[in-house]
């Protein structure tokens, strides 16, 4: 059976089984068949499945088997960047050549097209959902069809419509079956049990209440006033353009709700209409506006309760009630209206550039419900396109008795573990594996479906102990079989502690949402639960403390009190003296009013302040507190801690000021990183790159036995791409489970060194020194530090507008561009090239590039120490912490020794994802060039070899470059001078990195910052060093920079190879 047959017959057979044992010719022939099929296929899911098959074939089968050396045509890269996937595929196939590089690009293009097709289909279904369509047609004031309910537009005072909504926790999502793509293709497998809950953070003395609420009222100013109480943000929007500008401020979610609710329908974007006119038509009064207020009650981000989706749904429901789109203005919703709100919430998430699964708006419904996908039928917009409908059907599980509900409340301990992670990559991996019907994962999916039935039965019977055993089995089994990264070492540690502390009284773990680490459930015997509730804060805090340098924690862990909410979303109308908002709202807004003279306030504001004083008299003290400026807050930012850190790490203020002056004057900058225009850059020729041969292996083995090699692992960085700027020690991140235990990058590197019996040094920076030293590894301390600066507008524009960028999906791109405009505004307001100090100290400073990591060995005496211990030491194997396949291999060491080179650089054949320079002939001489100093990207993709960051170094040759001898290594002054002198021969690059700033309850902002770095690859330009190059396998040379690479790393066999290395199955 061909792959095309499998698609047509909807066979559930693992993709991998088909490819096993196929020749390159057979694979290519099948790829051609699939390509022809997907072009003609009318069924969306057949097309998408063919695309995913093609992507996987090229990535894991054709690419590795192809022998041709053809490079990727640059036009194809440009097409992919601009999301013109069809053109990219055509360009790549036109050459008719199968090479690893071309296949890597085809894999990306096919995958991109598959996900784009799916996203387009969901978007189209949301737009075509009955009740949503009109919003895209309303493009003129004359067409604007909504009117505010008359009850709301009567002044003195204007009434307040108030909506509260619970959040949802899922008992099981049947292995992420609520992802739209999955549910629309496999409706019979898409089921979720989801419970609406009220929460309170334990220890605050508050009773449980719906975690999200929103208020709407008319105001006597012709603006749209958006207020987020929990984010402390408020804005008076006076133009439609601003409404559609999502990332301009923290109010993107409220804007998405205003649009998705139809209050300001999507069709008005770019219509040139005046917001005040639309508001006047809506309210039926000139000079009036709407205030929309959101409030999340103390729930940190990353809670896995779908807080933002339910807040969006709450806001949408409120706006729809106010405009009569929902029949009932107050009370709970009717089923039709709940469905409409859920469909609008999906639309809102798309507008805001985010999105989860269809179960997320579960808080709109009351109590415990089974949500199941439905097959599409005639009359549905999805009919003939997908097997399932966009929206599932919610059935309230009334058969679950009250006693069972109570027992659940008495057994479950809900917590927020403190981690806030992006679940997006997991959802994509899940979709891909589903489409491939990969063996283990498909079995896992079936198992998850079976477990849901059992969970339902346990719920019905009120058997919470059984229920807990099932949620634990779900987590241990199908969830981690499909996506191993849904679990993590932190969660495992918490489970282990609960087991050891409470024994049989701990009934099981309950993963909430898409992954663990944030919101989680631990189920206990009701007799034990009170003790568990008391113990849990300590268990969480201690475990977090032990792991905080290796995991991206966003908040302090908390334990919640919770109750099941049997109302779903519900609204009330506050009129007359009761027409007030919440106390936290006034604590945010009233100080501003009170600072003004009373005569400057509108009559409504004055009367409202009176009502506030009457209603919330007990808040006077808190209000007073708010109005007094706080000295500590006024100082802001990193403060004295930063000064100390800079002083302790040898920061050079004079050099920093010089750099700032150069940067401000435009003498250095991203554009100035480039090599002079008259530089000749060409691809190397075959004679410049050696191939790995076993001929010199015996010499390598002898050298290893003689103790002539040490392994040096560079671990000074914080993996900005790995955690998106969260500032954790990447080396210590336990990212992969091997034989039941989580291994960190460092664990793997240390184990390889131990097995090879070579001394191992880990180079660190101020950020990574202490946590890595605490593991017992031999560390080399960082000696250099830089202070980050606010980038210049010119550099940001260069980065975003001149340098090539991967375009995002249209709406996400829009949100990104809006965010970038705000960042430019931020740069202008804080000052270009000013010191970046408005963050915790460790996020304000940076290691000054990995060039320094090896010289630091010289400066801090580590190399001298090694040489004293092992005078026979002649060579260093230097590599990055994330080059997991790198080993002190005898054949490579032997080749290096035989070549007599000062340094041998390991390179790999370039594939699509390999950006950032490579091996080139620069003015006729081979050397490594960094991507940022190439005149344009076209040149980079003309270079067939990519740098792996692994180097074999002859110590004496290195010392010669520095003008030192082994004996002089003990002379600190001489070494310092030598390093300084050599550093001056190295170019210093401006790079722009992203840093996270955390605030509030787990909120994060990402800022671009400028830093100056010197990079080790430039050592290859020093002629007297004598560098040579050797091509190694991809498995050996690839680096793991991004979490999204993990899936492919496992699937292409690299992970298994690493497991073999550290478990001794491979030498």
């Amino acid at each position, binding site marked *: 059976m061909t792959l095309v047959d499998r698609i047509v017959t909807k066979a559930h057979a693992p993709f991998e089984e088909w490819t096993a044992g196929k020749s390159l010719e057979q694979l290519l022939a099948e790829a051609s068949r699939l390509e022809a099929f997907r072009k003609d296929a009318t069924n969306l899911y057949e097309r998408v499945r063919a695309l995913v098959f093609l992507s996987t074939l090229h990535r894991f089968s054709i690419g590795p088997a192809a022998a041709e050396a053809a490079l990727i045509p640059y036009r194809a890269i440009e097409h992919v960047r601009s999301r013109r996937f069809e053109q990219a595929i055509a360009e790549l196939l036109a050459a008719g050549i199968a090479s690893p590089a071309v296949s890597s690009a085809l894999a990306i293009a096919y995958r991109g097209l598959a996900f784009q097709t799916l996203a387009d289909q969901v978007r189209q279904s949301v737009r075509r959902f*009955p*009740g*949503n*369509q*009109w919003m895209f*047609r*309303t493009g*003129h004031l*004359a*067409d*604007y*069809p*909504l*009117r505010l309910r008359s009850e709301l537009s009567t002044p003195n005072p204007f009434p307040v419509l108030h909506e509260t909504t619970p959040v949802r926790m899922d008992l099981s999502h049947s292995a992420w079956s609520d992802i739209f793509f999955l549910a629309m293709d496999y409706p019979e497998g898409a089921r979720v049990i989801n419970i609406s809950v009220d929460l309170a953070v334990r220890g605050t003395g508050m009773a449980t209440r719906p975690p999200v609420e929103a208020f709407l009222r008319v105001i006597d100013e012709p603006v749209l006033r958006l207020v987020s109480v929990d984010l402390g943000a408020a804005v008076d929007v006076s133009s439609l353009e601003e409404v559609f500008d999502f990332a301009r401020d923290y109010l993107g979610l409220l804007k998405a709700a205003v649009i998705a609710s*139809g209050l300001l329908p999507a069709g008005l974007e770019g219509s040139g209409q005046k917001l005040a006119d639309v508001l006047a038509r809506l309210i039926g009064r000139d000079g009036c506006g709407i205030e929309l207020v959101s409030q999340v009650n103390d729930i940190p981000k990353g809670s896995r309760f779908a807080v933002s989706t339910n807040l969006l749904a709450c806001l949408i429901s409120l706006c*729809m009630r106010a*405009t*009569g*789109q929902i029949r009932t203005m107050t009370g709970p919703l009717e089923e*039709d209206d709940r469905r*409409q709100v859920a469909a609008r919430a999906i639309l809102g998430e798309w507008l805001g550039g985010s999105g989860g699964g269809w179960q997320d708006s579960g808080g709109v419904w009351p109590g415990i419900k089974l949500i199941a996908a439905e097959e599409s039928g005639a009359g549905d917009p999805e009919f003939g396109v997908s097997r399932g409908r966009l929206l599932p059907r919610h059935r309230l599980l009334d058969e679950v008795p009250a006693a069972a509900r109570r027992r659940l409340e008495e057994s479950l301990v809900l917590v927020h573990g403190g981690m806030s992670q992006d679940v997006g990559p997991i959802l994509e991996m899940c979709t891909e594996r589903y489409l491939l019907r990969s063996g283990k994962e498909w079995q896992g999916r079936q198992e998850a479906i079976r477990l849901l039935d059992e969970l339902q039965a346990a719920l019905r019977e009120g058997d919470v102990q059984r229920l807990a055993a099932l949620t634990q089995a779900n987590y241990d089994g199908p969830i981690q079989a499909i996506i191993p990264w849904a679990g993590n070492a932190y969660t495992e540690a918490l489970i282990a502690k609960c087991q050891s502390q409470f024994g049989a009284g701990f009934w099981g773990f309950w993963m909430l949402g898409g992954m663990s680490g944030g919101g989680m459930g631990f189920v206990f015997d009701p007799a034990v639960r009170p003790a568990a509730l008391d113990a849990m804060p300590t268990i969480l805090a201690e475990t977090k403390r032990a792991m905080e340098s290796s995991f991206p924690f966003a908040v302090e862990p908390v334990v919640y009190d919770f109750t099941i909410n049997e109302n779903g979303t519900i609204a009330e109308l506050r009129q007359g003296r009761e027409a007030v908002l919440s106390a936290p709202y006034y604590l945010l807004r009233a100080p501003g009013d009170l600072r003004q003279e009373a005569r400057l306030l509108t009559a409504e504001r004055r009367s409202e302040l009176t009502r506030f004083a009457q209603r919330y008299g007990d808040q006077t003290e808190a209000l007073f507190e708010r109005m007094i400026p706080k000295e500590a807050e006024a100082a802001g930012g990193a403060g004295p801690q930063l000064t100390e850190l800079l002083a302790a790490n040898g920061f050079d203020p004079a050099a920093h000021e010089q750099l700032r002056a150069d940067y401000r004057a435009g003498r250095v900058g991203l554009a100035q990183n480039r090599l002079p225009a008259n530089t000749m850059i060409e691809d190397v020729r075959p004679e410049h790159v050696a191939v790995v041969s076993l001929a010199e292996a015996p010499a390598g083995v002898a050298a290893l036995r003689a103790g002539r090699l040490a392994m040096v692992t560079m671990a000074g960085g914080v993996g900005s791409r790995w955690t998106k700027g969260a500032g954790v020690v990447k080396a210590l991140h336990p990212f992969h489970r091997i034989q039941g235990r989580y291994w960190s990058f460092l664990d793997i590197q240390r184990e390889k060194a131990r097995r090879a019996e070579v001394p191992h040094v880990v180079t660190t920076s101020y950020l990574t020194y202490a946590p890595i030293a605490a593991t017992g590894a031999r560390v080399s301390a960082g000696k250099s530090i830089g202070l980050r600066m606010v980038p210049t507008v010119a550099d940001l524009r260069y980065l975003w507008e001149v340098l090539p960028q991967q375009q995002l999906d249209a709406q996400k791109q829009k949100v990104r561009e809006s965010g970038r405009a705000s960042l430019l505004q931020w740069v202008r307001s804080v000052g270009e090239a000013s010191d970046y100090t408005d963050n915790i100290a460790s996020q304000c400073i940076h290691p000054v590039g990995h060039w320094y990591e090896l010289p630091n060995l010289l400066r801090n005496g580590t190399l001298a120490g090694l040489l004293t211990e092992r005078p026979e030491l002649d060579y260093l194997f230097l590599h990055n912490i994330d080059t997991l396949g790198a080993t002190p291999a005898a054949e490579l060491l032997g080749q290096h020794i035989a070549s007599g080179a000062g340094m041998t650089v390991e390179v790999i054949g370039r594939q699509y994802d390999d950006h950032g320079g490579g091996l080139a002939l620069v003015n006729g001489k081979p050397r490594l060039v960094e991507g940022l100093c190439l005149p344009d990207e076209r040149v980079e993709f003309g270079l067939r070899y990519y740098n792996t960051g692994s180097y074999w170094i002859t110590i004496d040759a290195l010392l010669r470059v520095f003008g030192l001898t082994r004996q002089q290594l003990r002379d600190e002054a001489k070494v310092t001078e030598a390093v300084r002198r050599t550093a001056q021969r190295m170019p210093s690059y401006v790079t722009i990195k992203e840093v996270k700033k955390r605030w509030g309850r787990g909120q994060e902002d990402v800022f671009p910052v400028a830093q100056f770095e010197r990079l080790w690859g430039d050592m290859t330009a020093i002629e007297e060093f004598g560098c040579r190059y050797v091509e190694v396998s991809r498995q050996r040379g690839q680096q793991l920079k991004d979490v999204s690479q993990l899936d492919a790393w496992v699937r292409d066999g690299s992970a298994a190879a690493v497991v073999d290395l550290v478990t001794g199955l491979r030498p």
Partner: protein
Amino acid sequence: MKLKAVITAAAPGQRHILHQTLATPDNRRPTMGEFLLELLAEAVDEIGIVIPSGDRAPFEALFAGTGRRITLIEQLEAKGYAHAIHQAREFVGSQPFLHLVGDHFYLADQGPISALTAELVRLHAAEGCSVSAVLPTREGLLPYFGAVGGPALGSKLYQVETVLEKPTPTQAERELVAAGLRQGHYLCFFGIHLFSAGLMDILHNHMEASGTVPSLSYALQLLARQERYLATVLPGRRFDIGSKYGLLQAQLALGLQGKDREEILTMMLELTAR
């Protein structure tokens, strides 16, 4: 058999509308009341006009000399549209009746406007049930009209299944789907209906049972459930005189339809150019 007709003109904002004059191409200045009588023409022999309490004299003056049998029915309390219709219960008895809203002005696409009513009467005679005239209306105007939804029985004929008063487009998309209309257009009431006596019974029974007056759309929704109820698209236009610039629009449409079209266009151009 000739029918009776009921015109509602009792709403607080409507009391002067029937007295409003409009200029015609022959330079007559008939009132809105006269236009409505012209619309009814030969189809009815007796007309009941529901007027505000205490307004009898001006209405008597308005219709004096028309030669039509007119009964003025005072609505003693302003309790809404459905209540106003219900005031004519005795007047219509147990017979079907034509109903016109008093604040609309109508134009036929071709021929006399009485052809519009005649078509409704013909359909009623053929189908033996209530028939409402409807006009496909773009969704931006939904806040001004009642609207119906249901399956199409012919190119201009629909079976009414759902009736909503001033629906939002969200409700309309969900509940008022009708085949053959342009996207974003719904069947909104034209302002002329031919109701069976069943409607009066529904209104009466509801008021007796609950003591409250239902909305007319609610009553029509019940009517659609209890008996066959059709809607038809008539070849004409309607203008809501009560809405902002509704009168101006009606006057312009009337003028542009006659021999002075060029003159009016020139006039408008001059006004625009200033």
